[in-house]
């Protein structure tokens, strides 16, 4: 009995540790782990003050609309711009009855040290003129460390690489409801625009 029990016990202990560490063999990267750790949707979206490209301070919950939020930084070598290009296409594909009247896009930069209002305003122009429902913003009066902690709380992992200005981060899109809850997350690297639009429309119809 002992001869079988000991290897099986070792297998159970090791499997349990790996199972716990990956949230049931689902999350193998720190990006997906942080998202799952933040909690199941719908979950409360913690309040944060942002400042938009015109310098106006605002709060997501005061918009009383659905918000599709993503996080970028302007010195990003490529992935942020790819995601924003995808968002630009998405914005123009969405029914004009939905965006911007019911749904707005908010792109937040998390590079507090290097990005400023002028830069985000200039950056916004790269995505054309007809994007009234797409706000570019910066966190308002918050320290870098506190903001990184805030990001983790909402499920977005960001890590500033030492000795460079590179910030490796999750590219998830968060859908926030008018009652200030994160109701859905999207992974633009895995989901097509058509899939995202379908799910967005479904969420808006369910309200």
């Amino acid at each position, binding site marked *: 009995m*002992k*001869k*079988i029990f*000991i*290897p099986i*016990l*070792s*297998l159970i202990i*090791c*499997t349990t*540790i*790996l199972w716990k*560490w*990956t949230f049931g063999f689902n*999350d*193998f*990267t*720190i*990006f997906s*782990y942080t998202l799952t750790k933040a909690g199941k949707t719908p979950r409360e979206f913690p309040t944060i003050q942002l400042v938009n490209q015109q310098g106006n301070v605002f709060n997501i919950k005061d918009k009383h609309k659905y918000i599709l939020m993503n996080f970028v930084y302007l010195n990003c070598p490529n*992935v942020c711009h790819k995601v924003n290009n995808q968002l630009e296409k998405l914005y123009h594909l969405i029914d004009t009855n939905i965006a911007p009247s019911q749904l707005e896009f908010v792109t937040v930069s998390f590079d507090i040290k290097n990005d400023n209002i002028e830069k985000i305003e200039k950056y916004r122009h790269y995505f054309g003129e007809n994007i009234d429902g797409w706000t570019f913003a910066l966190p308002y009066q918050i320290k870098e460390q506190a903001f990184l902690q805030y990001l983790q709380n909402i499920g977005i*992992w*960001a*890590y500033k*690489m*030492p*000795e460079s200005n*590179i910030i*490796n*981060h999750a590219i998830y899109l968060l859908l926030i409801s008018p009652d200030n809850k994160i109701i859905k997350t999207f992974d633009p*690297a895995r989901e097509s625009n058509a899939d995202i639009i379908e799910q967005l429309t479904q969420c808006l119809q369910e309200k």
Partner: protein
Amino acid sequence: MFYLLSFFWNDWLSITMPRHQLIQLPAMLLLGILLAYCFSTLAIQDMYWGIAILIFIMASFIFWMLPHSIDVAVINKHFNRVMHINMLLSGFLLILVFRKIFFEVKILFLGMITAMLLASGITLSVFNMLLCSSFSIEQQKQTGLYLIFIAIALFIFTAITFFSYLRNRSK
């Protein structure tokens, strides 16, 4: 050596993914193996304990190959040290088990390690998505490529060992 690898050179070894995964981790394992050779009389006598320990070693390898573990090890120094001690212990225990366990089990274990390294290497080299936030995608691909080479080398070693054993037995 442990002090040098775990403390003195740790920052340098943690800067890039190939250094972290292909130098620091195997070096710790090798140190454990060398340490076991200093205790030539020590061995795990019972087969069931041997298998239980091999499961632990295998799980340790899998754990430290996970992108999430790699990230936390780079960011958190305490967690990094746990990795070093775990690898040292794995190397040490591996030799103690291998001294007495059946040859077939050794081959099976080496085969599984080879398969794991190959799978990890292929995953890291073909994924165009960043898996570890502490490193760059170029480093990820480079690490993947070297892991494939290591897996091939280990496969050749396992095959030679296996067929040499068969030849000796038939004699």
